[in-house]
């Protein structure tokens, strides 16, 4: 059994992503959780790079690791009014934790089992090297209306977020 360089990269990145994701869920201090979240996003970006989805990896780094994590850390700083070591405790409700653990184990077990024993209709990927051209062709061709709707959605969401956060003025 020989492991190529690409396989080794996948194994390292997958382990890194899963460990940092566990850190997000298990750390007691929510600031540490947020920093682990940034590393987890970077690991997922690396996973995209191993799949030759370079543009998506860059978007992941820019939007997730850049913008969304800064937004989350900002919100954490705004709402922290207690001891930082106790900001990210598990739910005090024991049935909640039990239900979460059991549901997660059940879902992951069932899905991993069914994925492992399914044979997918894989094709040998033609190495085109021009994913970006393919993507832009789709974006400005068949999917131009969803693209414009996505832009509109972002605008409305950001304006709505500003109004929600600073409060609308009642006349």
């Amino acid at each position: 059994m020989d492991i190529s360089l690409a396989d080794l990269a996948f194994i390292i990145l997958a382990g890194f992503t899963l460990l940092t994701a566990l850190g997000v869920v298990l750390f007691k201090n929510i600031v540490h959780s947020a920093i682990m979240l940034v590393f987890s996003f970077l690991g997922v970006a690396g996973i995209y790079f191993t799949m030759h989805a370079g543009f998506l990896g860059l978007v992941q780094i820019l939007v997730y690791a850049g913008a969304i994590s800064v937004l989350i850390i900002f919100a954490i700083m705004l709402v922290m009014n207690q001891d930082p070591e106790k900001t990210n405790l598990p739910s005090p409700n024991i049935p909640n934790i039990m239900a979460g653990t059991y549901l997660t184990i059940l879902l992951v077990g069932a899905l991993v089992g069914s994925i492992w024993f399914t044979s997918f209709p894989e094709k040998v990927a033609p190495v085109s090297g021009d994913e970006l051209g393919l993507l832009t062709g789709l974006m400005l061709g068949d999917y131009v209306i969803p693209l414009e709707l996505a832009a509109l959605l972002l605008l409305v969401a950001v304006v709505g977020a500003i109004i929600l956060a600073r409060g609308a003025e009642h006349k």
Partner: protein
Amino acid sequence: MIGLTHYLILATLLFGIGLFGVLAKRSAIAVLMAVELMLNAVNINFVAINKYVVPDTGVGQLFALFVIVVAAAEVAVGLALIINIFRQKKSVNLHDFNLLKW
């Protein structure tokens, strides 16, 4: 040899971690972060299936891009809601958010 199966299993594990976070955490921001992990897992699935099942189109990557856009909008609105509730309740604990219960 890494193939589609390994990517799908990685996405499943990541989704499971996110699901556990959503169900077992009490801080609203922690729940939002766990939802982000789940969305990332879905994106890995989109890109992996695009690469290994329909490699001659880019539709999976495009949908992953749309998921990222919607996730960005969701985080902005969700955090604004949490900050707004924090002003009234002085807490981000989900068990204190019972305005609609009687």
